[in-house]
């Protein structure tokens, strides 16, 4: 069942020559030419019950405007948004809460603003109080709450009733870890009960964890839409170069193929994982000494280069990553056209499973300023536990067990 359908949605802000022209235009009077600023262009997507869509994009890409149109505080200029069912939006926690009211009174106020009757609110009150876990403070004025406690109450109200569509704007990045996990769990439970989820975040792991698909907004239009990991890769590629366009959009949706971006002033010509005998491998034993060999070609004589890599698990979560900059290894003085090799040797202290390696060539500490090449899924390998004691998890941390009695 489709919960949310956004079709060909565009939004422009109209600037009038003067405010009187604006008022005249309400009465159907044609006014002098006025300037339009387009902030959203031709956005289309659908969201079914129980599905989660992550929306990413740099600041000013139009994410918040899109959410405001979906929740109904702004109107689209053209196109349409249709929602079947009730929307709950967490655009800003503690919206409309009054610092002088107690937590309990604010719950009545906030839930009332959401359109619930007093009886419905009072029936839910014990549950809200229990979820917020602010103890005696629940009956004290909101102004003496810590910001974390305010978030707890606000989140408890906003999600007290399971909506058909839940819209969350980076609100989860607040509060302590305990409550963050608790709220994550609640969101996941709602999702499995059939709530469609719209989630705006810059947090790669949160998007990968929660979302079934993702949409990348750039300057108001859809840059990529599809599997979260692929979209996040494009987002990552866009950070140093806003004009980045993947050669074929399908490529980005295919998470089994390497995905690369960058200006190619330096480029990888070969990426291999070698065992101790320098033979290429794609299965590695837990704890085995391996070498990541990156063959790089310089297409410029620029004088400084950072070479880095990142190991990711099969869900795309980062397990470990570092680069030559962080290790204070200077790689410089290149001759145009020269080819050289950088080797990273390490013990594969990883848990059994599939892993991928992303590698990057850029300047400075991160790829955000200038990125020569970023290659996701440059290679994949499996880790097997053959001769170690049985264990679980993403990394191998062998303990020494002492029993004292």
């Amino acid at each position, binding site marked *: 069942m489709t919960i949310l359908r956004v079709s060909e949605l565009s939004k422009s802000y109209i600037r009038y020559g003067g405010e009187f022209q*604006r008022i005249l235009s309400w009465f159907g009077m044609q006014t002098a030419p006025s300037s339009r600023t387009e902030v959203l262009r031709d956005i289309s997507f659908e969201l079914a019950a129980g599905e989660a869509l992550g929306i990413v994009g740099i600041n000013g890409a139009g994410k918040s405007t899109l959410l*405001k149109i979906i929740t109904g505080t702004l109107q689209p200029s053209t196109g349409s948004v249709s929602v079947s069912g009730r929307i709950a939006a967490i655009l800003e926690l503690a919206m409309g809460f009054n610092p002088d*009211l107690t937590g309990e009174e604010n719950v009545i106020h906030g839930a009332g603003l959401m359109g619930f009757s007093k009886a419905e609110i009072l029936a839910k009150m014990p549950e809200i109080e229990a979820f917020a876990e602010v103890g005696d403070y629940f009956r004290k004025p909101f102004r003496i709450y810590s910001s974390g406690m305010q978030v707890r109450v606000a989140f408890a109200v906003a999600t007290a009733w399971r909506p058909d569509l839940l819209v969350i704007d980076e609100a989860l990045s607040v509060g302590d870890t305990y409550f963050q996990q608790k709220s994550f769990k609640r969101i996941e439970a709602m999702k499995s009960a059939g709530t469609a989820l719209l989630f705006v975040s810059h947090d790669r792991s949160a998007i990968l964890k929660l979302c079934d698909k993702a949409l990348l907004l750039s300057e108001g239009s859809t840059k990529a839409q599809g599997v979260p990991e692929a979209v996040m890769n494009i987002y990552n590629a866009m950070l140093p170069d806003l004009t980045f366009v993947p050669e074929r959009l399908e490529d980005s949706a295919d998470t089994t193929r390497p995905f690369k971006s960058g200006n190619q002033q330096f480029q990888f010509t070969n990426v291999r994982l070698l065992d101790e005998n320098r033979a290429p491998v794609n299965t590695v034993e837990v704890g085995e000494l391996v070498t990541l060999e990156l063959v790089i070609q310089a297409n410029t004589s620029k004088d400084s280069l950072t070479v880095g890599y990142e190991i990711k698990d099969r869900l795309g979560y980062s397990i470990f990553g570092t680069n030559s900059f962080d290790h204070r290894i200077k790689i410089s003085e290149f001759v145009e056209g020269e080819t050289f090799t950088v080797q990273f040797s390490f013990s594969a202290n990883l848990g059994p499973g599939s892993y991928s390696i992303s590698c990057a060539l850029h300047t400075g500490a991160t790829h955000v300023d200038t990125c020569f090449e970023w290659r996701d899924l440059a290679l994949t390998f499996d880790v097997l536990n053959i001769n170690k004691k049985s264990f679980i998890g993403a990394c191998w941390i062998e303990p020494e067990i002492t029993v004292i009695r």
Partner: protein
Amino acid sequence: MPLALKALWNYRHFILTAILSEFRLKFSRSLLGGLWGVLNPLAQVAIFALILSNVLQARIGNVENQYSFALYLSVGLCCWNLFNDIVSRSLTLFIANGQLIKKAAFPKIVLLANLMGACILDNLLLLGAVFGLFFAVGFYPGVTLVALPAVLLLTALLAASLGLILGTLNTFVRDIGQVTPIVLQVLFWFTPIVYPASIIPPALRDLMWLNPVYPLVTAYQNLLLYGIWPNIGDLSTTALLTVCLLLTGGFLYSKAAEEMAEVL
């Protein structure tokens, strides 16, 4: 319009709680608490009464009481204050709630209802104080008192309709917020509140009907002081005007609503 009424009905609990908590909070950290709600209007009445009643030796019409001027004045002020409060506070209705309008989806008409409720509640306190004054000087209003709620509600609705128009326009053209208080000042002195309507030259008296508050103030004075039932004809005209203003305000707001969240 039916949509707006439905929204108001659905949010009735919210409106009621919001009005009551706002009222409670207003005095929450003061020593005298709710007493201020009565003291403020009383002070206003006292000042006008002292200056105008004693200094100017004013005497009003056929009310047989030595404090008749104070009574006359306070009744007029009751009506005027309600009108004035609602109109002035409506001016910033949307601006003050800008964050809420931008971030939360709810029927905005609720905000106007909250404001109206809060002003009426304040006004009831003033009325209470005025009745206290009545009893203190030994004056008892007649049976016509029962018409007061209707006239009060009409006053509030007229002010809210006007407020909706001005508040909407003020969101875009802030000059409205500067000009309106001046216009209200002028209107106050053009309404027979501190002076009896009888001192107005007959030639000008016909012009008084252009003042929308005039029939309301007159109705207050008639039903509270003179025991005369309000003139239905005059008040119907006011009611008609209220409906027209409300429709205009509703139309303006519906046109402006789309752009309001953008400029706030």
